[in-house]
């Protein structure tokens, strides 16, 4: 039991019919997740992340393929899957008409917990997720960050061994986002909970996920740790500046001797290249140029981001990819986020920071 992967997806495929046209939102999704992993689906809006999550959580049946989640088949034993997973959807889990604490207690009852156990657990979560100041307020009155913490508390009420989070930090200001992540990381440290999330924030996947599955157009196109994805698919961007264009021209030949990556002229008197392990290449390039009598005036090395990985894999940046495609079934909700690439959402966040904790 414990050695069995907590998620085994086998050829999961989902097709939707939109205006008499069949659209394949997810194609042949096959992967395993071991107990205790922290995995992120990273991809632009409309990549099929939410649809995949909705299949794994029994919300929608796959068109073909199947999956075992926490030991049970999602098609034949959906009830057993539901009892053992937590789910935090893209929207608000709490009903706007209900009070926050009431929703926690109702959630306990939904998962077969006794009244006493529900009360103890609700109070624990109110304490650990800082819900106390608004626990007796109705969900409608809560700020975005408060709603999201309640969503997570609701997902954790029955202490599931596996929790799915669909875009958990979308719409949160940077501080609330960092806060939320601290709670998720604490939870893992304490209970070994397996965390499976979707995100279109590459910094988030980069910083927190131990394993990143890059999704685009319904397919997983890469699956590895963020570090290895970046090393294998992107590499550091190195730039060397010189006193004159002549020096720069000569430097190309010297540096090209150290790497098989293409070294290019960049600007008036500098050269640039993208290479794996650039942190080691940069000092040796400087030394080699010194030895050849060419003085290096400036040297920078920029480590790659997952956006570079996405660019290398698809030829598009995450932000470009997020515009236009909408193959996901939740088009109405995803549409609102359509333009919110990393940059755009960073601006949106900055503007809501002041109003977030009213």
């Amino acid at each position, binding site marked *: 039991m414990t050695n069995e992967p907590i998620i085994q997806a086998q050829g999961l495929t989902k097709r939707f019919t939109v205006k008499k046209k069949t659209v394949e939102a997810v194609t042949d999704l096959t992967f395993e997740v071991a107990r205790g992993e922290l995995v992120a689906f990273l991809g632009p809006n409309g990549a099929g992340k939410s649809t995949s999550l*909705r299949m794994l*959580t*029994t*919300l*929608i049946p796959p068109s073909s393929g199947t999956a075992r989640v*926490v030991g049970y088949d999602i098609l034949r034993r959906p*009830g*057993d899957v*539901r*009892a*053992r*997973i937590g*789910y935090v*959807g*893209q*929207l*608000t*889990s*709490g*009903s*706007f*008409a*209900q*009070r926050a604490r*009431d*929703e926690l207690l*109702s*959630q306990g*009852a*939904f*998962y*077969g*917990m006794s009244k006493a156990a529900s009360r103890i657990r609700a*109070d*624990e*979560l109110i*304490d*650990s997720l800082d819900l106390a100041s608004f626990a007796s307020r*109705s*969900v409608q009155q809560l700020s975005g960050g408060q709603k999201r913490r309640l969503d997570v508390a*609701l997902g954790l009420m*029955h*202490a*599931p*061994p596996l929790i799915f989070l669909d875009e958990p930090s979308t719409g949160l200001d940077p501080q609330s986002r960092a806060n939320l992540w601290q709670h998720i990381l*604490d939870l893992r440290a*304490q*209970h070994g909970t397996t965390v499976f999330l979707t995100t279109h924030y590459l910094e988030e996947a980069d910083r927190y996920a131990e394993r990143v599955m890059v999704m685009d157009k319904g397919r997983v196109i890469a699956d590895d740790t963020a570090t290895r994805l970046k090393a294998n698919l992107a590499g550091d961007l190195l730039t060397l500046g010189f006193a004159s264009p002549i020096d720069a021209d000569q430097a190309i030949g010297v540096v090209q001797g150290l790497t098989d990556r293409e070294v290019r002229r960049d600007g008036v008197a500098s050269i640039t290249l993208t290479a794996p392990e650039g942190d080691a290449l940069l000092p040796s390039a400087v030394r080699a140029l010194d030895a050849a009598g060419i003085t290096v005036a400036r040297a920078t090395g920029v480590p790659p981001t997952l956006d570079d990985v996405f660019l290398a894999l698809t030829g598009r940046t995450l932000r470009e990819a997020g515009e236009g495609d909408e193959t996901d079934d939740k088009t*109405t909700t995803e549409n609102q986020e359509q333009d919110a690439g990393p940059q755009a959402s960073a601006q949106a966040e900055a503007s809501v920071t002041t109003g977030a904790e009213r």
Partner: protein
Amino acid sequence: MTAESTHTRPDTAVRANVARDTWSVLIRELKPVVRDPFTLIFSLVQPLVFLGLFAPLLIGSSGQPVGETLQWFVPGVLVMIVLFGTGATGSNLQYEMMTGSHERTLVAPLSRPSLLVGRALKEIAPIVVQALIIVLIAWPFGFTINVPGLVIGLALLAVFGVGLGSLSYTLALKTKDREWLFWGVQQTLIFPLLILSGMLLPLDAAPAWMRAVSTVNPVNWVVQAERALFAGELGDITVLWGWIAALALAVLGLWAGVRAMRKSS
């Protein structure tokens, strides 16, 4: 955080159970009502307007004594509460479908029928409270209350409400995020049902085709049964027809609602 770390909970392996799950859903739905009972009073405004502004016109035009006119009119107002209040309850579910909490309940290990039945049963609470308030307001004006008739009348109203509420939820589940469609269908149906029930004005003077249509309107039969019950004519044949109409509506509503809930995602 410290308290949490001391607990290592076994994974909950609860099985769906229709009775227990229905109870859990019902209790959850009742919480906002208990927390804020004044919402029940606000939704009474419409029937009170009819009682205060329409009943006097009725009394004036019929030339009958006040008590007698109320005896005819008030049972119809009680059915009106269900028609307008319970008939619109699907919009609450639609709102929860759009804001996300419905999705959360679908991922919970609850039996699918209980998600519908629990909500439908909740409708009984506002119906009974509101009906009692209307009856108590009409009482000092000469409306007589037959206690067994009142009890059976409320039970009939409850069954009718469960049916109509289920249909309203079905409409919400089918129209999804298209609120305009929900309200369009709801409003299109509710006024013909209202007028063809003889609730506001007797259908005796209506053209033959209207009377013919009204015989297949379940609301009409429920209104007639309520009138008989409040008049103390418990054995009247219209009472039987009222129960048949209400039960048929409840069976149809629950069947359609459970079907729609099973398909909900």
